[in-house]
């Protein structure tokens, strides 16, 4: 039986973020949080492996008080259990600290064959946690996976690189990160959402992992100094006309009058 730990992060719906017009800062307070898209596909990939090979899936997330609600979806889609690291003392730490905390959590869960995660989370785009965790655990990493299978305790995967598709093989345990193209995550049914609420969930703070939140925090290395959405003014003119030909003619005139076609 294969035991898979899937790393998931809850993030705000990026399309819902409003930009404060005076400060250009993103406003994320009060927005609903959901599992980051690529992470959800990592979970879907785990479920497909389980369906073929039998196994057990533990979802692991480092988050906040809001994480439990967001992660219900993971249990509804097919995770068997959920572990949340929730410690306000760890809010805002960098990828360096996040991966140390996740290492401790992964070791506490224990007995895993495979650790799956998304290539990056859609909010931070930092693409570090998978490789960092592999380094801290001394495991091989298989990144950017768009296809995978288990055969005799070995993972066979196709990695999506810029210039090649690389077919690779690795003995487990290993850390695997997936890309968006690996699958489409399933949508949970109402029944499965009901059942999800009954699945085992554990919540840990730093001390439950044998860590000091204060020390961890002090070890953080990257600080965000400023967040600012670049201001791009667009004309937002919607061309209205009776017929397609007329609309196209107006658009052609507009394009030409912008002078963007001169060499």
């Amino acid at each position, binding site marked *: 039986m294969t035991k898979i730990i899937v790393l998931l992060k809850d993030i705000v719906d*990026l*399309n819902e*973020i409003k*930009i404060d017009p005076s400060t250009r800062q*993103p406003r994320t307070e009060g927005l609903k949080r959901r599992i980051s898209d690529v992470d959800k596909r990592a979970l879907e990939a785990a479920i497909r492996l389980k369906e073929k090979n039998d196994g057990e899936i533990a979802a692991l997330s480092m988050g906040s008080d809001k994480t439990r609600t967001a992660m219900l979806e993971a249990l509804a889609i097919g995770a068997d259990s959920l572990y949340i690291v929730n410690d306000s003392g760890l809010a805002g730490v*960098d*990828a*360096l600290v996040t991966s140390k905390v996740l290492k401790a959590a992964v070791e506490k869960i224990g007995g895993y064959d495979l650790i799956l995660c998304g290539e990056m989370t*859609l*909010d931070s*785009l*930092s*693409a*570090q946690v998978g*490789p*960092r965790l592999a*380094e*801290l655990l001394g495991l*091989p*990493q298989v*990144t*950017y996976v768009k296809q995978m299978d288990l055969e005799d305790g070995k993972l066979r995967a196709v990695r*999506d*690189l*810029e210039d090649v*598709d690389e*077919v*690779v*093989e*690795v*003995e487990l345990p290993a850390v695997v990160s997936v*890309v*968006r*193209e690996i699958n489409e995550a399933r949508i949970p049914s109402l029944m499965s959402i009901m059942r999800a609420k009954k699945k085992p969930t554990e919540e840990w703070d730093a001390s439950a992992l044998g860590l000091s939140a204060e020390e961890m925090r002090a070890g953080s*290395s*990257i*600080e*965000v*100094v400023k*967040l*600012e*959405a*670049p201001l*791009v003014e*667009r*004309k*937002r*003119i*919607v*061309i209205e006309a009776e017929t*397609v030909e007329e*609309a*196209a*003619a107006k*658009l*052609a005139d507009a*394009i030409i009058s*912008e002078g*963007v*076609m001169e060499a």
Partner: protein
Amino acid sequence: MTGKTVVAYSEDRELGLQILSKGREISDKLGAKLNALVLGEKIIDPKEYITHGADRVLIVEDPALGSFAVETYRGVVLDALKDVDLEVLLIGATKRGKELAARVAAALDTGCMTECIEIDVDEEGRLLGERLTYGGSVISSQVSTRKPHIATIPPRTFKKAEPSPREGEISVLDVDIQDRRMKVVESREKARGDAGLAEAPIVVSAGRGFKDEADLKLLEELAETLGAKVGCSRPIAADLGWMEEWIGISGYKISPKLYIACGISGTIQHAAGIRDAQIIVSVNNQEGANIHEISDYSIVGDIYTVIPALTKALKERMK
């Protein structure tokens, strides 16, 4: 121990040279020496790194480095840099470069700023970086508070320097090559045409609104009329394979005078790639599509009728 050192590395030679030009600036501010780290089976023309700004080229040559494997490469990088007073390590943000940087940063117990579009150092010698977050909609200005400072730099972010007749040192290092556990069974070459998107003054672009690959000829006719290059959203390339390169946060970030988005919804990830376009035009049949919000001109309509009509209208006017 050497004196203060900035090291630049990319397995992509061109990107490596681009990083060197920025690395030179940073090194001068820090009073540090700039080293180019070059790994491979056989290194040709190492002097090129010197003429592009490096004070020293650190070379590791080994048959095992003929193809990139992160486990092997991480060990080599760590070993090659162990006697270096490392201030800053800049790595090219290819997919391989990003996984290498994260792994090396973890081994050195330090931070890493992914895909910086700008870097600098402050008075205290700390590395400052600007990078995109929130799907690409927000610029995050960050500071790396501890050395060694590590950042990855995407392709085409900085221009490589004009080569100049500089003097420098070339050191061939002897390092331990560790075994890798991930075995490469096969490497399937991808079709990779440089579509010329990066420099094109006009780009027309296809999204999932196109039902069939053959329908792209509508867009090609428009492109021909405008002298434009043809691009697309990520699913058109990555899911459907109709084209090779896409536009957006994970693809090409472009700054044409004119961008025409056809059947593209305008997600944050796509929008991040066209922010610097002078004029954005969109054709999308859905009134509420986000692409209309980020366009200068849009038509709420069917690409299958609007594009041919637009091509015709432009042709008439350009005679």
